[in-house]
């Protein structure tokens, strides 16, 4: 397997306000290898966006606090990096695509200028005409006509705006791309175009990607490995085959799969997970999922589960008491 590009160890992040402390990330461990696409799956409030913002060190000033842990990106200690060093890293070593292409572009700059801006910041060695050429190149790569580079975001549709955002994120050929629900706001036929584009670029540039999504269909299509997040921690992680074809799963993962209407099955009723994501200011004791878990045992209410390795290669792990005695 390719070398490690990103390593997150025991990350703990809180949001601190006058009223309460929100325990957003609680002991997160994550690794992404070079060129690999890791899907980060979970519902609203699981902490996925917070994870991405922590990697970029873009948590809201003073309110978002990295309490503990380490984030090592391409050998760089992110948590202890100064802001001026982070500015060199953002857009260059690591880029981010935010969820809504409607609101993540500057409405008063042309799309050409916005892409050029990334180059002007990180490639001081490039002259104006070289930058212009590179902008044309990246526009072509994302399937947009370079003749439109002097137009403004509002003149483009959602799918096209998302391509501009992708162009901006990839123009400096970052090693890691953080994509936060990149196709959720797009129509399904446009989603196909954008995902095919991302796959092509991933193959060409060997960019690693952290793909945040709640859509298991997208995960099945583009990810190499998958991590499932609940209440601020990873509760299951594995290779794509482990997650989609494996027999053992965390009860929450089973619940997620059970909630999706299956085009092949005729079930009249879906199998939703009862209840809601726990209040992050007041997390349950023991396993944070125990309140909603159909297989909850007494141990689950008291003791937090350890990480159990499901297979010999240690590619598939599940944080659940059901698998404490699994021996392979």
């Amino acid at each position, binding site marked *: 397997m390719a070398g490690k590009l990103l390593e997150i160890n025991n990350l703990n992040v809180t949001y601190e306000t006058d009223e309460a402390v929100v325990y957003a990330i609680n002991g997160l461990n994550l690794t992404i290898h070079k060129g690999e696409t890791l899907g980060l799956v979970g519902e609203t409030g699981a902490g996925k966006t917070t994870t991405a913002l922590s990697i970029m060190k873009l948590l809201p000033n003073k309110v978002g606090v990295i309490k503990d842990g380490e984030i090592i990106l391409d050998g760089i200690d992110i948590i202890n990096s100064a802001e001026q060093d982070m500015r060199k890293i953002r857009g260059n070593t690591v880029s981010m695509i935010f969820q809504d292409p409607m609101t993540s572009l500057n409405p008063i700059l042309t799309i050409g200028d916005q892409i050029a801006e990334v180059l002007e910041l990180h490639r001081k060695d490039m002259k104006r005409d070289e930058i212009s050429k590179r902008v044309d190149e990246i526009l072509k790569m994302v399937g947009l006509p370079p003749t439109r580079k002097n137009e403004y975001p509002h003149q483009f549709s959602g*799918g096209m705006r998302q391509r501009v955002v992708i162009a901006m994120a990839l123009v400096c050929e970052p090693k890691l791309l953080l994509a936060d629900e990149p196709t959720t706001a797009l129509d399904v036929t446009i989603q196909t175009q954008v995902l095919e584009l991302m796959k092509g670029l991933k193959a060409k540039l060997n960019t690693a990607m952290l793909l945040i999504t709640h*859509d298991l269909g997208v995960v099945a*299509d583009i990810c190499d490995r998958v991590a499932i997040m609940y209440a601020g921690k990873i509760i299951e992680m594995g290779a794509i*085959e482990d997650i*989609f074809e494996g027999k053992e799963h965390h009860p929450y993962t089973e619940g997620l799969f059970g909630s*999706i209407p299956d*085009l092949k099955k005729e079930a009249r009723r*879906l*199998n*939703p997970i009862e209840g809601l994501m726990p209040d992050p200011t007041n997390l349950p004791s023991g396993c944070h999922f125990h309140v909603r878990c159909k297989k909850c045992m007494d141990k689950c209410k008291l003791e937090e589960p350890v990480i159990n390795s499901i297979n010999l290669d240690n590619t598939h792990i599940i944080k659940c008491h059901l698998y404490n005695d699994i021996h392979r």
Partner: protein
Amino acid sequence: MSTPLIETRNLKKYFDTLEGKLHAVDNVSFIINKGKTLGVVGESGCGKSTLGRTVLRLLEPTDGEILFRGENILGYGTTQMRNMRKKMQIIFQDPYSSLNPRLTVSEIIAEPIKVNKTITDKIEMENKVNEIMEVVGLSSRLVNAYPHELDGGRRQRIGIARAIILEPEFIVCDEPVSALDVSIQAQILNLMMALQDEKAFSYMFITHDLSVVKHISDEILVMYIGQSIEKATSEELFKNPLHPYTQALLDAILEPNLSGRYKEKKVIKGEVTNPINPTPGCRFAPRCPFVKDACTGRDLELKEISPNHFVACTLFD
């Protein structure tokens, strides 16, 4: 065959814009029988939400007919229409903007009763609200809560409670679960289907999510830039999609399994085109892999190709 509950005939809704007439809904006809669900699918800008609102006369149609139990409601005056609204309701997409933030849960749910004066006794009204809250799965302790204190799933239950409290016969559901997490979506869909089983509601279920529409619909209408391009039973549409656009939509569905992962994807080029001053003809023609001359020049009509399976496409002329 008894009179359908809802019928539209050649329904049109155009908007005037600075650049010209926007053909949001263009010549749409359908029937919904009692206790049945018509799913309306299509991508952004196809006119499905506009269709939903026009059927309820929340937007006035430009042309065509809307019949409730065989009677054309377009002739109704304000009072008659207000009376009709007790039987025809709507559930909105966004559970965050569709609830008055300054009213409590019970006040929001009671509002239709107050407006229509169907119950005047305070205690009776309270009991009705409590009854409906239980039916939709809202805990009674939320009676005095405000929407901002609740999550999307609970807020959508309030929207549903408000829509059903007058015991309507027909409910337009405009993307009612799109804004919700997957496991909450499942809870809400189950609730809606249970209510339909119990109270024989007819639904017009508008969505862009094909797996959801298959699950809940009896019949499905596919729209593209204001035009109806295919209509069939849910099972038939998925088994045998005829229109190239329907096929592209179904191809684009990513299932939560690895079967499609290594298959080559059919990517339709281009974007959804402008519905302002459209030229006569099929609006999918610019993107269609099977386009021919006959596709432009005159608007196409839905034709029955096999029993109860309609399509508007020159491939089937």
